[in-house]
């Protein structure tokens, strides 16, 4: 079962990280899911693949009534992002799934109907969660061609999807980055290969540098906090991406 860690709280406004399942089979890539609550509403960010649904569901349901979830934010279309969609919809068929317009015809293969999906335009959009405004921030080509991060201006948290992701070896399972230099080694190969465009990367770095970010939360690996956020942005800005070994 995964564990939940509250990484931000101000009254009913919470960010909960759902992380690290010791029972997860090794052949499945490890993922982080996030739950944002505000008042009696909640949005789950990249709820994960179908195979890890039991672990995510059980952890999430300890924190929030799953049938009261208002929506799912899918950063992009990959199976580890939201192939569990059909299962979540069982609990609230009226739930919305926010995803890039580009994937409007693809994600429904995981479940849902015409009313389920809210298409995010390329420039991004505001998503209201019980009065709290969350901003879908463009991160196209990082790595998906229709890709979004989610920014909470009040909590100063950026959910960065695959940006900042690291495939950590066993034993390095801390929730937060503790030693940036040691950590980033496990992120380098991933970013070089998975991020397809230096131009897109530069634009993203410029965009997020203008935001106030206390926590940068990727979908894989550890969370960057404090000075490590800017350190990561600077590192990423200098990294040459879109490179395959062959």
């Amino acid at each position, binding site marked *: *079962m995964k564990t939940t860690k509250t990484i931000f709280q101000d009254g009913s406004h919470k960010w909960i990280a759902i992380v690290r399942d010791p029972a997860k089979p090794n052949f499945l890539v490890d993922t982080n899911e996030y739950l944002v609550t505000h008042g009696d509403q909640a949005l789950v960010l990249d709820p994960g693949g*179908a*195979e890890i*649904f*039991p*672990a995510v*569901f*059980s952890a999430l*349901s*300890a924190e929030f*009534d*799953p*049938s009261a979830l208002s929506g799912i934010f899918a950063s992009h279309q990959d199976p580890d992002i939201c192939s*569990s969609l*059909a*299962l979540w919809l*069982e*609990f609230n068929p009226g739930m919305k799934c926010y995803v890039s317009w580009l994937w409007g015809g693809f994600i429904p293969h995981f479940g849902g109907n015409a009313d389920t999906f809210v298409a995010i335009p390329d420039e991004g959009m505001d998503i209201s969660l019980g009065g709290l405004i969350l901003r879908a921030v463009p991160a196209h080509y990082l790595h998906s061609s229709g890709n979004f991060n989610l920014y909470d201006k009040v909590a100063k948290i950026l959910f960065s999807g695959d940006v900042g992701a690291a495939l950590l070896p066993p034993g390095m399972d801390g929730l937060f980055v503790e030693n940036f230099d040691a950590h980033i080694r496990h992120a380098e190969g991933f970013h070089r290969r998975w991020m397809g465009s230096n131009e897109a990367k530069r634009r993203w770095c410029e965009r997020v540098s203008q935001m106030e970010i206390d926590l940068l939360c990727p979908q894989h690996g550890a969370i960057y906090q404090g000075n490590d956020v800017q350190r990561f942005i600077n590192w990423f800005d200098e990294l040459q991406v879109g490179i395959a070994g062959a």
Partner: protein
Amino acid sequence: MSTALTTLASKRPQAGADLLRIVRINEQIKRVVGVSFKINIMALNAIFLAKRAGTAALGFGVLSNELRVFSQDLRNCMDALTGLIHDCVNEVSVVLQDTRQTRLLEQAAGLAPAQPALIRVLHTREQAGEEHAQRLSSLRRQLKRALEDAFQMVELGGVLAKSAKIEAAYGQSFAPALAQVSGEFDGIVEEIRSSLETLRRSAFVAGN
């Protein structure tokens, strides 16, 4: 594990096995369809042969016409069977998809046992599962009936082929050629009978 969960869990291997059986039945039906098309061509040739033989093969000509009608009826019958098989594949595929999702929901129930929303969802799934099972059971019955109809038709085909063999003996100088054709008819009808027998014994049709 509750009764509902046990029932759902016990359906898991069944759906996969059913799908495999249906796929095999479909292959067998495709074979029969191909053979019945062959009978049609053979009957057409036999009709021409009977025409050439003239009055010596009048009876053979009538039987060849009947065999041609038989092959068309058999094809119609196989079309109906193919339609039923298609519906069965569809139904079993839905059950397979539901089974996977139910397995994941059951795992979640194991980790979060007192979750009312989850109990409700599993209950709804169980009801839907029962509806699928009933539909599949109805399709299985229809398939069984359609197979029995095909069997009766093949019995008739067998009688026609054997009669053609007898008529061939009266074909004078054409007798050897007519005997060869009627022998081939008989062989093919037996092949169809054997295929239908396999279908009839299939665990999916027999309901095992």
